[in-house]
């Protein structure tokens, strides 16, 4: 090795980071938003806000759901009921009917019906506007969009692997990791950017390492199938059945028998678990061999592997309870995925994860900016002599604007589209998503044409207006704006919180734009068209 170990690590850190930073920023923004994907979905369906303000107990909801299902889903082979919890407010009923003989199969979910109902009465809710809501942002962060999910997962996995390399080489490169732990020196150009990058990286380092590693673990059977493939000779189903065991299924007897009431079973299960029942599924309802399975809500345990209980559908006798002890490796994987998605933990812990996610966005953004600032410094002499910035620098600066300032614009456009597109519309979710990508593409292309300081200012301002404008837009398009949810205290709390968070993020962007006010004439000469803002603030365009 010609250079020292630390230098080569610095090289590795720079390039492994730069190569994937823009995709990573998207993944981080989408992932951070996903911590609140249910809340985002609720926000995007104002028709459900009234129901959300009056929650009921799971026993009441289970009884109402059973009554509704008995009435509407007779003859179904399976029932699925998702009870409301703090984060989803409507009861979701679903059932699948056997396909009629001679009928063409309509794909896997062809005979599946689902509807959202009022948890207290079981009545179908007035159909809320069609949207993918937070689910889109969640999918976006590992499936991307407009491409096959498998390809996308490979791309995201590749970026995550580079991220892991970056984190480790970054820690090695960072000589003064403890000495500089609390150091942030604003208004010092490159120095400030480095400080901001270090602070957001080091302080949330446990989170960054965890999220990158567990992110890879969630998809490990895609990335590294060979272990399981070799041991099970390609028989994937057997592998999953042995690694993650489930109860056996009972065949329908063909003899009709009434279903036992859900409410006592729910009470029994909740007493044993000390947690809420989230899902009820019934195999062969109305049959003598019916089985009712209750699953616990995630939230009382760190793992995503939730215990479930099987009851005889007619007598209500407990048949088996599963998943309270899981084999070691499966338990480890469950905890890792649990840590990644943070379904456990109450609102406080989730808020901390969200904050750490924002720190991650800021880390990626400052890292990308730092490269541009440093490279511009290196080319300062040539630039002062009137030469143009190198192709690479121009490209990176333009991509930085397109990603760092562009992603908030895309998020903002998505939420604005949700409110402004006609409520009844063909393929509404698709149009909303088109707005997301349309706005982003516009921002990115314009940035490529003129990657200047003025462009930063314009795009940051646009993002600020879009995000901070959402609470105002709400006043005109919904009846659950901040005036009602916050000042009259009628809730739902999560809708009010959404408005406040986007407002705060919008103001942050506005502050960043304000800091980029045109340079005074003298300074302008010294740094013509400095494409990267040189004032530091830790909480950079983090984006929703």
């Amino acid at each position, binding site marked *: 090795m010609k250079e020292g170990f630390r230098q080569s690590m610095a090289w590795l850190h720079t390039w492994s980071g730069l190569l994937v930073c823009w995709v990573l920023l998207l993944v981080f923004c989408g992932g951070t938003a996903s911590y609140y994907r249910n809340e985002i979905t609720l926000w995007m369906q104002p028709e459900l806000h009234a129901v959300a303000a009056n929650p009921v107990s799971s026993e009441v909801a289970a009884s109402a759901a059973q009554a509704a299902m008995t009435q509407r889903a007779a003859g179904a082979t399976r029932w699925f009921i998702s009870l409301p919890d703090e984060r989803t407010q409507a009861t979701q009923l679903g059932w699948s009917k056997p396909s009629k003989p001679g009928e063409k199969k309509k794909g896997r979910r062809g005979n599946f019906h689902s509807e959202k109902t009022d948890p207290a009465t079981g009545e179908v809710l007035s159909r809320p506007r069609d949207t993918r809501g937070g689910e889109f942002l969640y999918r976006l962060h590992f499936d991307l969009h407009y491409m096959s999910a498998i390809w996308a997962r490979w791309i995201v996995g590749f970026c995550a692997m580079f991220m892991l390399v970056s984190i480790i080489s970054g820690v090695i490169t960072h000589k003064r990791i403890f000495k500089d732990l*609390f*150091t942030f020196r604003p208004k010092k150009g490159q120095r400030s950017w480095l400080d901001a990058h270090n602070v957001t990286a080091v302080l*949330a380092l*446990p989170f960054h390492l965890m999220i990158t590693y567990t992110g890879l673990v969630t998809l490990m059977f895609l990335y590294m199938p060979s272990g399981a493939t070799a041991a099970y000779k390609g028989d994937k189903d057997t592998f999953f059945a042995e690694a993650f065991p489930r109860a056996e299924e009972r065949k329908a007897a063909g003899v009709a028998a009434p279903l036992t009431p859900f409410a006592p079973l729910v009470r029994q299960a909740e007493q044993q678990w000390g947690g809420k029942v989230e899902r009820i599924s019934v195999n062969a309802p109305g049959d003598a061999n019916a089985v009712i399975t209750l699953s616990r809500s995630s939230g009382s345990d*760190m793992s995503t592997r939730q215990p479930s209980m099987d009851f005889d559908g007619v007598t209500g006798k407990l048949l088996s309870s599963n998943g309270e002890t899981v084999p070691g490796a499966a338990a480890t994987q469950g905890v890792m995925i649990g840590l990644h998605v943070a379904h456990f933990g109450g609102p406080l812990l989730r808020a901390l994860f969200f*904050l750490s996610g924002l720190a991650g966005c800021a880390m990626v953004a400052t890292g990308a900016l730092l490269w541009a600032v440093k490279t511009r410094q290196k080319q300062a002499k040539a630039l002062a002599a009137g030469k143009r910035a190198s192709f690479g620098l121009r490209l990176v600066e333009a991509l930085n604007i397109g990603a760092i300032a562009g992603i908030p614009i895309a998020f903002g456009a998505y939420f604005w589209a949700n409110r402004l597109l006609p409520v009844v519309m063909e393929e509404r979710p698709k149009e909303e998503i088109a707005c997301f990508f349309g706005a982003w593409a516009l921002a990115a292309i314009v940035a490529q044409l003129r990657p200047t300081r003025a462009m930063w200012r314009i795009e940051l301002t646009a993002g600020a207006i879009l995000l901070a404008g959402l609470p105002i837009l709400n006043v005109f398009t919904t009846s659950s704006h901040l005036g009602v949810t916050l000042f009259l205290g009628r809730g739902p709390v999560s809708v009010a919180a959404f408005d406040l968070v986007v407002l705060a993020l919008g103001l942050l962007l506005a502050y960043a734009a304000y800091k980029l006010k045109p340079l005074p004439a003298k300074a302008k000469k010294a740094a013509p068209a400095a494409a990267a803002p040189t004032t530091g603030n830790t909480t950079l365009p983090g984006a929703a």
Partner: protein
Amino acid sequence: MEILSNFLVFALCYAGLSCLCLAMDRHYADLHGRGAEPPPQLRRRLQWGGWLALAFALAWAMHIAGAGYGTVFWVGSLTGCGLLLIWLLPYAPHQAMRLARVIGVAAALAAVMLAVL
């Protein structure tokens, strides 16, 4: 009660980090003028106090939320408090330290209240 419990973790983390921060030459100088260094005795006290506060925060977090959750909660609150402290330091160093003192006292009060109740 729960709010008080959670607050105690945050308060201990913030106070502890502030102590550790103040024990460093650079940040001591931020407050007391260029070139100022903490006297060795004070530095030792700050370091001990800081680490003790963080250790208590971890112990308390584990006590209220179990070992697994508690650790995650503690790490998260370290991140949050650290970001707040570092953000305040360059712009309002004296306020940051005043806040640390107030929060330290509040933590002691909260601990006493939790012990009594």
